[in-house]
C-alpha cells in the first residue's frame, strides 16, 4: 500500500480541526473568539475540537483575564506543527498521484 497514506493524520480529518491548525500555523496566538469568527462554528463545536487537538498535544492553551473576562489563547506546539506539515505533505502527494492516474 502507498506509503504516504500513513502520514495522513486521523486527528486532522475534519474541516474544523484543519482550520484550527491552519490558523495557528500562521499566528503566534489566537483566542477562542477569533477562532470562532474565523471558522464560523458554534462554541460547543469549536471547544470539542480544540480539546481533541489539545489531548494530542498538537496545540497548547493559556488562560488569562482581560479585565474581568476570562480569555483563552491557543498556540501550536512543536509536535503539532510537524504533524500538520506531514499531513499537508501527504495530501499533496495524494493529489499528485490522482492527477497522474487520470
Amino acid at each position, binding site marked *: 500500500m502507498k506509503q504516504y497514506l500513513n502520514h495522513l493524520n486521523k486527528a486532522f480529518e475534519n*474541516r474544523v480541526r*484543519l*482550520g484550527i491548525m*491552519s*490558523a495557528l*500555523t*500562521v*499566528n503566534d496566538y*489566537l483566542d477562542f473568539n*477569533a477562532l470562532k*469568527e*474565523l*471558522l464560523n462554528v458554534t462554541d460547543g463545536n469549536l471547544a470539542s475540537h480544540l480539546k481533541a487537538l489539545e489531548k494530542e498535544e498538537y496545540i497548547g492553551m493559556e488562560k488569562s483575564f482581560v479585565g474581568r473576562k476570562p480569555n483563552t489563547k491557543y498556540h501550536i506546539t512543536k509536535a503539532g506543527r510537524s504533524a500538520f506539515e506531514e499531513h*499537508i505533505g501527504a*495530501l*499533496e502527494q*495524494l*493529489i499528485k498521484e*490522482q492527477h497522474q492516474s487520470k
Partner: protein
Amino acid sequence: MNKEPDYIKDISEIRNIMERSSRFMSLSGLSGVMAGIYALVGAYLAYKLFYFSDEILYRTISRGVVSDKVLHVVLLALGVLVLAIGTGIWFSYSKAKKHNYRMWDATAKRMIINLAIPLTTGGIFVLIMFSKGLIGLIAPCTLIFYGLALINASKYTYTDIRYLGFCEIVLGLLSSYFIGYGLLFWAIGFGLLHIIYGTVMYFKYEK
C-alpha cells in the same frame, strides 16, 4: 479512496484560512482610486484658492504670524484625509460583507496599529515643524512617513502595498530636495500614485 476530491478542497481551505487569519484582505483597490481623486481635487482647490509661494510663507513666519492661507490649506488637507479614510472604511466594509467576512477582526486591528505607529510619529513631527515654522519640509515629511507606514503595514495586508510605500518614500526624498513644490509632490504622491495603485489592485484581485 473515494474521498479524494475532498482533499483538494481541504488544501484550498487551509490556504484560505492561513491567509484570512494573518492578513487583512478586505482592503479594496477602489478606495485607493477614490482617495487619489479626492487628493487631486484637494490639491487643485488649494492651488486655485490659496496658492502661495514659500517665500511669502517664510516672511510671515519670521514675523511670527501664520497666514490664514496656511490654516486653510491644513483644513483642506484634513478634509481630504477624512473623506479618503471614510471611503476606505466603507469600501472595505462592503467587500467584507460580499465575502461574508467580518471587517473588524484581529487582522484589521494589527494592520491599523502597524500603520498608525509611523503615521502618528510623522504626524507629531510635522506638527512640531509647523510650530517651529519649517513649513517647507512638511510635504516631504508627510510623504516619507506615509511611505514608511505603508511598508510597515504591508506585512499585515496585501504585500503589494509595499511598492506603493517605496514610491512614496522616493517621492518624499525628492520633494525634500526641491523645496517649494510641496503641493505638486502631494498631488503626485497622494493623488496619482493612489489612483495607479488602486487600479492595479482592482484588476489584480477584484476583477
